[in-house]
């Protein structure tokens, strides 16, 4: 039985957009696409991208950012640095076949086909706020599972203190990786306790469907209390390390992007304020909350730390 803990950040049931409602449009589109594809392909080749999942904890009751906006306004530099580049270049990311390597300081390392990697885990929906370091935010219904399950299964050694993540490297197909805008492949990292936190998920979908490529298919991290760039996309490797792993934006501009990068209105980016954000779809800016509003859940992870220094 699923025991739900109720928190202030949990949705009132009346305020969640029923899945049937937000899916109606998708169903309509999918029917159209299927009809279109059906003219050219055998029926078996028309993939059904909808996922089986149950509602999970920690979901917010704030209004969802429309699917259209979530999937056409992206930062995914591997597919181009403009906001609409990733959706336009999405087809260039090859997600099949896909393998995920789990290695480093753990007893149960391995390399898995994506299907085997995902098979043990039941999917749940997590409606999270996403706050980009650039000053905009969204509310996204992710489909995924808690990262801590994968980590526990890998049996980290006592010496493991951090988890490092790596995005796929494929410069032949990914146009962004042919330009040195960042050092490729994209890498990210979390402290082990951050990675083990139940808010931290690996997502395989959004809005009830498999992740579109521009959102980091087929497997991405979602850490809702940190700036969006920490939620690394299209993951091929997860490693346990003893030392703090390098992270891409920190490596690029260490004075602007720290390892922790917790959402914090009181610590400005050196070049712009982080006090406010524009929620996509809203006209007026809104105040940014500490830990993106997840302080109740995660503030204790940073007890005693000077978050101005460890930004």
């Amino acid at each position, binding site marked *: 039985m699923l025991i739900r803990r109720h928190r202030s950040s949990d949705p009132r049931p009346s305020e969640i957009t029923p899945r049937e409602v937000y899916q109606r449009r998708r169903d309509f589109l999918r029917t159209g696409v299927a009809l279109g594809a059906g003219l050219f392909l055998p029926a078996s080749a028309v993939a059904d991208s909808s996922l089986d999942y149950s509602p999970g904890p920690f979901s917010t009751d704030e209004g969802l950012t429309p699917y259209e906006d979530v999937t056409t306004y992206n930062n995914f530099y591997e597919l181009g*640095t403009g906001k609409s580049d990733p959706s336009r270049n999405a087809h260039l990311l090859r997600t099949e076949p896909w393998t995920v390597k789990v290695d480093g300081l753990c007893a149960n390392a391995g390399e898995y086909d994506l299907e085997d990697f995902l098979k043990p885990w039941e999917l749940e929906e997590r409606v999270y706020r996403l706050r980009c370091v650039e000053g905009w935010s969204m509310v996204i219904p992710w489909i995924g599972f808690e990262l801590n399950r994968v980590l526990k299964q890998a049996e980290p050694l006592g010496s493991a203190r951090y988890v490092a993540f790596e995005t796929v490297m494929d410069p032949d197909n990914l146009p962004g990786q042919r330009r040195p*805008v960042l050092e490729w492949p994209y890498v990210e990292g979390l402290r082990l306790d951050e990675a083990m936190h139940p808010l931290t998920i690996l997502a395989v979908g959004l809005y009830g469907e498999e992740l579109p490529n521009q959102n980091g298919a087929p497997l991405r991290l979602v850490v809702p209390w940190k700036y969006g760039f920490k939620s690394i996309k299209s993951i091929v490797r997860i490693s346990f390390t003893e030392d703090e792993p390098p992270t891409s934006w920190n490596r690029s501009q260490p004075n602007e992007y720290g390892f922790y990068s917790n959402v914090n209105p009181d610590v400005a980016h050196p*070049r712009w*304020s982080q006090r*406010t954000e524009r929620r*996509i779809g809203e006209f007026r*800016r809104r105040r940014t909350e500490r830990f993106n509003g997840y302080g109740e859940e995660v503030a204790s992870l940073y007890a005693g730390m000077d978050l101005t220094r460890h930004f």
Partner: protein
Amino acid sequence: MAAGQRWHRATWWLLLLVALLPGLWLVARTGGAFGGLGVNPVETLLLDTGTCAIIALLVALSVTPLRRLIGLASIGRYRRLLGLVAFGYSSAHFLIWLGVDLFFDWVLILEDLTTRPFVMAGFAAWFILLLLAATSTRAAMRLLKRNWTRLHRLVYPAAILAVVHIVWLTRADYREATIYALILALLLGLRVFWALQGARKIRGQPARNGVG
């Protein structure tokens, strides 16, 4: 003469129309036409007015070098129009930042203006253009005499500040900023080169390539 005058006036109006087209297009998109302003409308308004401003400023600054390079002295009379267009777009940019993006939140505005170098550079560039626009009339020219030319040389620091503004707000992809910087470097570099040549001539030394 009368025919030349008419020709000049027609060109002036045509130029104004072309210069205002991106602005009119933006207004139409704000009204929902042509697919609207996209996922982040305020960002689109800010970026597009800023882009129009820097392009108009670079075009205005290329009039004098072009006049010399292609030997068409008459294009000089369109310089003021182009400068005013640049001022217009930068004012739209500034006002959208002030009134739409930050919605007259004076605490945030003052914080930005006093602590964010890229905001300071952009504001300074706009303020210079404001001074130049305010003194762009014939009456102001007569009144200021030789000081008018001195004052309007401030357009060079304004353009440098505008490019610095763009460089400082760029996160990682410097392609666009680099293009503006290279064009500005060329336009200012030509002026410096010609000025040095002129100085050499005045000192009685022959210009190296005999130009000017």
